[in-house]
């Protein structure tokens, strides 16, 4: 028996916001909608979606695993278009991950809609003196549609389609105040930077389609796993890219990295992170919904979705990028003064944690972090929106201070957010907010990967080859390359995994360099792929350090805003709290406190059963399920054997109280406002320089502006000039030259029409005879009353052309050919 209730509910929930968008786009400005009612429609739409999502979520968790698997299997597919011989289907990917993400998006979006009614009702909805209130909610509807569509897509192509639509909404909403140059600049920057990522996405997509012959996420992953096991398809293929011969495992890695490039754009990972801070030019609810909770998480979601298509090397790349991002952006966050910018950089840093988590194989933990982050970051942004709105668009925290008295609810919900992002929790107990568990879990896995990579990682698959040879071994047949990376890792345990990676690469090169010996080479590749490289130690330590930095800069932000004495009396006097916006803050705060561990963690765990339980993953990352078990055992009961407890509990004590240390430090430093910190900065040599560098975002934006933006524009100007002045002039030159050769009438080419005295008939005939240039251009003044003549002449032109051809063909040597032909 097939049951499609869930898909129908989810699909319906996607379409409802689209309907809201359509209605608002066409009629939003006028009665019966207008200013407040347009928002009610949008809110009603997303709330309905949320109700549907809640229904699906609750029913789904009442089902057994088998039932879920069956429903996932049976979810409908509708034929959309043919791609060559490949059928592209549109359908709902029905599994735990989808349902959780779907619920999260609709839930947060509903409350942000609610918040926006209050926020946008102020004068902030004026664009160029006109009310664009309805337009804001129309865009939100379009965004919800795209985001939900992205979440439920069962096909990689549809994922990409919605992916781009989400980018469009981001563009429109960042540039919502489009009469302001900085807003439209920021929107453009976001879109184009994302397109750079999409460029990689397209290449990854092309590779997926090329080798798996399907767009379907599951089918592609299955085909990939099957090819991996059999050593066929992409593992036996090679392509040339600009002289670079890519084959086998490297090609598969390229595929994964390509897809990840898309995620780098959307989730704003280094080096494509530059758009997110600028995106704060949009209205604050937009920052909360799109640039904190949902859209920027889409990249993480994508990586989680295509996790089964990632090779160990691709995962390593992802981990490195995530690690760089989380470190760099956290440091920049320390020196920011704009409250939204601080939140933006903290978002970047937290996204870096998620991406890093996925990269090290902490699938469950990364998604868990995504969920918890979505709640507390949305709340933080809404809180900042309250502050900004209350302080009449003051964003600089240096001018705030003491606001706790004026806006208590905002102050304390914000504080809960700070605690959550700082990772508040008491090690060894059940007490803690979401960030505590999720971040800890990521770090635990990173610890495993950096320090504890022993042979057990490939106990089932890798032990058939006992060689301790560092660089592979050649057996009797001379073509069977073996490389046991696990052993290499042990040998190369001196603190870097370079040797292991080199071993992988060299063995791979040897395997693929054998020409005919594909089958044997493949065997070697499989062995290599079955083991994960050990992580370099810095990739564990950097996230640990940043775990101390995060509470510091968040506490700094909160303290300077709400605590201490008012530094700008004017701002303080005006500060007020809008009661209409209480509800979303409080709901999200409750969500942050309650939902984090007890609700999300088990849900994600279940999702990992469905989403990650594939042969390829088991082969690539045999430990993924072990990882997902770590926190449950280590953190909840502290009684776990099998060597997992020790690193983890030790870890819990290393980072477990980082929140306290970081926050205390910030509180002390900024107890009386920013003066003390300023004095320290000036006193310690080098610190001022560091401060300036960080304030300028490490000059990355400057470099991009200078090299890329200006470079591309200059190149454009250059080519544009080349086009008009070289190519076109060359063409004209040819024309002039041709004119000289023929029987010339001595007139300028472009004057011919005006002054020519040779008839049209001649012109056509001669043209066909290839001397048009010379005698052509002789059309008598075509203006005014003589047009009719020319029309008649034109109609006759074809006949004359025909006549000419006939004469020519009959008179030339063609006649011989014809007679010869007819003689046969």
């Amino acid at each position, binding site marked *: 028996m097939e049951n499609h209730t869930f898909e129908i509910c989810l699909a319906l929930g996607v379409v409802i916001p689209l309907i809201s968008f359509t209605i608002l786009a066409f009629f939003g400005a006028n009665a019966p909608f207008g200013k407040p009612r347009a928002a009610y429609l949008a809110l009603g739409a997303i709330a309905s979606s949320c109700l549907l999502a809640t229904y699906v979520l609750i029913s789904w968790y009442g089902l057994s695993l088998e039932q879920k698997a069956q429903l996932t299997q049976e979810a409908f597919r509708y*034929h*959309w*278009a043919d*791609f*060559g011989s490949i059928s592209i289907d549109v359908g709902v990917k029905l599994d735990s991950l989808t349902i959780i993400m779907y619920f999260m998006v609709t839930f947060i979006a509903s409350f942000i809609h609610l918040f926006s009614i209050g926020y946008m009702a102020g004068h902030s909805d004026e*664009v160029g003196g006109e009310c664009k209130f309805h337009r804001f909610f129309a865009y939100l509807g379009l965004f919800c549609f795209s985001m939900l569509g992205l979440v439920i897509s069962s096909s990689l192509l549809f994922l*990409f*389609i919605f992916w*781009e*639509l989400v980018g469009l909404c981001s563009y429109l909403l960042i540039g919502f105040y489009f*009469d302001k*140059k900085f807003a*439209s600049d920021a929107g453009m920057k976001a879109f*184009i930077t994302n*397109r750079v990522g999409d460029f990689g996405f*397209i290449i990854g997509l*092309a*590779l997926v*389609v*090329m080798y798996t012959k399907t767009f379907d996420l599951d089918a592609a992953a299955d085909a990939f796993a099957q090819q991996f096991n059999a050593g066929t398809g992409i593992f036996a293929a090679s*392509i*040339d*890219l*600009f002289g670079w011969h890519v084959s086998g495992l490297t090609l598969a890695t390229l595929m994964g990295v390509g897809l990840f490039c898309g995620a780098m754009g959307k989730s704003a990972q280094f080096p494509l992170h530059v758009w997110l801070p600028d995106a704060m030019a949009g209205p604050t609810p937009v920052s909360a919904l799109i640039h904190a909770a949902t859209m920027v998480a889409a990249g993480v979601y994508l990586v989680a979705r295509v996790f089964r298509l990632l090779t160990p090397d691709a995962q390593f790349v992802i981990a490195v990028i995530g690690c760089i991002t989380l470190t760099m952006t956290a440091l920049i966050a320390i020196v920011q003064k704009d409250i939204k910018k601080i939140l933006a950089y903290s978002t970047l840093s937290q996204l870096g944690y998620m991406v890093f988590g996925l990269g090290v194989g902490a699938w469950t933990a990364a998604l868990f972090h995504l969920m918890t982050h979505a709640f507390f970051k949305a709340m933080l942004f809404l809180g900042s929106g309250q502050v900004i709105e209350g302080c009449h668009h003051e964003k600089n925290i240096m001018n705030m201070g003491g606001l706790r008295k004026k806006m208590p609810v905002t102050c304390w919900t914000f504080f809960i957010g700070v605690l959550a992002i700082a990772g508040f929790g008491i090690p060894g107990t059940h007490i803690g907010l979401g960030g505590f568990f999720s971040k800890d879990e990521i770090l635990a896995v990173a610890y495993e990967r950096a320090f504890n990579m022993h042979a057990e990682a490939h106990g089932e698959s890798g032990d058939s080859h006992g060689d301790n040879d560092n660089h592979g071994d050649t057996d009797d047949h001379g073509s069977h390359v073996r490389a046991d990376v696990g052993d290499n890792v042990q040998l190369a345990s001196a603190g870097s995994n370079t040797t292991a990676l080199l071993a992988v690469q060299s063995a791979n090169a040897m395997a693929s360099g054998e020409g005919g010996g594909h089958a044997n080479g493949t065997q070697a590749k499989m062995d290599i792929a079955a083991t994960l490289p050990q992580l370099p130690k810095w990739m564990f330590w950097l996230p640990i350090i940043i775990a101390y930095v995060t509470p510091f800069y968040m506490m700094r932000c909160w303290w300077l805003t709400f605590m201490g004495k008012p530094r700008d009396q004017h701002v303080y006097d005006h500060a007020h709290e809008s009661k209409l916006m209480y509800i979303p803050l409080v709901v999200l705060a409750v969500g942050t406190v309650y939902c984090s561990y007890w609700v999300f963690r088990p849900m994600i765990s279940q999702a990992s059963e469905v989403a990650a339980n594939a042969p390829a993953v088991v082969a690539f990352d045999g430990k993924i399920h072990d990882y997902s078990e770590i926190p449950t055992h280590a953190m909840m009961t502290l009684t776990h054997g099998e060597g997992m407890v020790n690193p983890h509990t030790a870890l819990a004590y290393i980072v477990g109280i980082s929140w306290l240390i970081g926050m205390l430090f910030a509180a002390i430093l900024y107890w009386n406002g920013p003066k003390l910190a300023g004095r320290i900065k000036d006193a310690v040599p080098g610190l001022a320089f560091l401060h300036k560098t960080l304030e300028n975002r490490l000059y990355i934006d400057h470099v991009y502006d200078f090299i890329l933006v200006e470079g*591309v524009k200059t190149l*454009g*100007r250059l*080519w544009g*000039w080349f*086009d008009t002045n070289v*190519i*076109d002039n060359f*063409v004209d030159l040819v024309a002039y030259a041709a004119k000289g050769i023929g029987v010339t009438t001595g007139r300028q*080419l*472009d*004057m*011919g*029409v005006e002054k020519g005295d040779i008839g049209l008939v001649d012109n056509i005939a001669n*043209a*066909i005879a*290839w001397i*048009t240039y010379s005698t*052509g251009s002789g059309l008598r003044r*075509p*203006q005014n009353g003589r*047009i*009719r003549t*020319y029309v008649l002449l*034109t*109609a006759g032109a*074809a006949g004359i*052309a025909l006549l000419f*051809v*006939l004469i020519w*063909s*009959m008179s030339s040597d*063609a006649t011989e050919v*014809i007679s010869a*032909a*007819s003689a046969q």
Partner: protein
Amino acid sequence: MDASSILNFVIFGPLIGMVLVLIAPSQYAKHITVGTSLVVFFLSLMLFPNFLNGSAFDGAYGENMQAVTQIDWISVASLKIQYYVGLDGLSFALIILTTLVMSLAAATSWNFETWKVNKGAKGYFALFLLLETGVLGTFASLDFFLFYIFWEVMLLPMYFLIGVWGGARKEYAAIKFFIYTLAGSVLMLVALLAMFFSSADATGTGTFNLLEYATNPAITANFNDPAHMFLGFNFGQVMFIFLFIGFMIKVPLFPFHTWLPLAHVEAPTPISMILAGVLLKLGAYGFLRVCYPIFPTAAMDLSFLIATLGVVNIIYGAFCCLAQTDFKRLVAYSSISHMGYVVLGIAVMTDIGYQGAMFQILAHGISSPMCFFLVGVIYDRAHHREINRFGGLWLQMPKYGSLATLGFFASLGLPGLCGFIGEIWVLLGTFNAQATHSEMTWAPAMAVVAAFGVVLTAAYILWMIQRVYLGERREEYAGFKDVTARETAILFPMAVLAIFMGILPGYTFQLMNGTIDAVLKAMHVSSDAIAMAIGG
């Protein structure tokens, strides 16, 4: 009325309209033109059934043409020229596109009285309708000679439409267009004759039948025979190159593209719409109907070169767009960039590439007239096209701003709109070309370079949108009215089609996929036969 008569009425309907225009008083010229083009459009819609139920796609290439009329027309000695028209998946959608764009362009010409050059209404509308016959005839012709005649018939009206009713440098633009196209025509004519006589060699009686060229084994063997020489070069290659140059001028492909921005800038809005929406497609259609099926071996030999030209068009056109300050020139260069995808898709000779190219032809046929019309709307009001002088138009004209955003995003290739499908099909198809033709090892790299075009496209479109539509309202444009009912009525069909084709591309693919498979199969068969012959 059977399909054949419908098609004949569609082709020559505009001529009847032209006669009416010439007879009737000049103030009715535009009414007659709009009426005629609409009638032709609705007539062409009546051709749909055979293509919708798939009955048009049984059998091999050329075996199942629809709406066929085949009668002897001119017979002199052994020269047998037929009036042979018919439709298949390659041409059908283009016929519909043409009749649609022509109707919209006719409606765009409605404000003829307000133009700078507003004299000679009769002449303008008569030529307009003659042009429509020329284009429709070219798409429907299956006899090469007939194809050639229609091709020439289309050329002259265009020359006058630009040269008389154009802008400041209209004569220069017109003559440039004319000479360029004629140069191409001459090469085509040489090929036409050579192919006729070669087919006479092969079968005893020469033919101009385009389908027979591609499917008659004797002819394909003769045409693609590596030992067959023409002026000391390989016959197939020379013919292919001649035809290719003839058509590439029309597409236009780098380096023969400089007539296009000029012609667009000088041409009045409706003529630009026709030029971009329909005329450029004739070049691409020429590749698909003439060059590739008839000379598959040469096409394969030259595939690298052609794909390179396609990629150069994409990137070069996009860079040139970044440099433009004239709104219309920018859109013209974007046409060049977009047509690059068509050529790239055709060059790789795979089903996906062909599908993408065909789709891109149609998508660009919708989006580029829309963009040109959008430029026209603002030109009618501002009487200039300097991008840097604009700004704040979305606030001034909200409806227009929204429609413009839609149109330009369709051009940008945003998913959900028509431009995306063609682009992604071509890009992925090119990347995958190696799977079909193992010798195309360059294909993935080509796709990577072409894919970079999506970034540049986003850059120039968004930058243009920012400069023209966003920003604060300006004094200078304070009096501008939002789009009128007529303008909305013209934009609306294009907007709807852009969305429809983007969301449900399956229906558009359905109109052509069958034929694409058949063409590729025929090409495969003939090139295989050659390979066998060489091997044996």
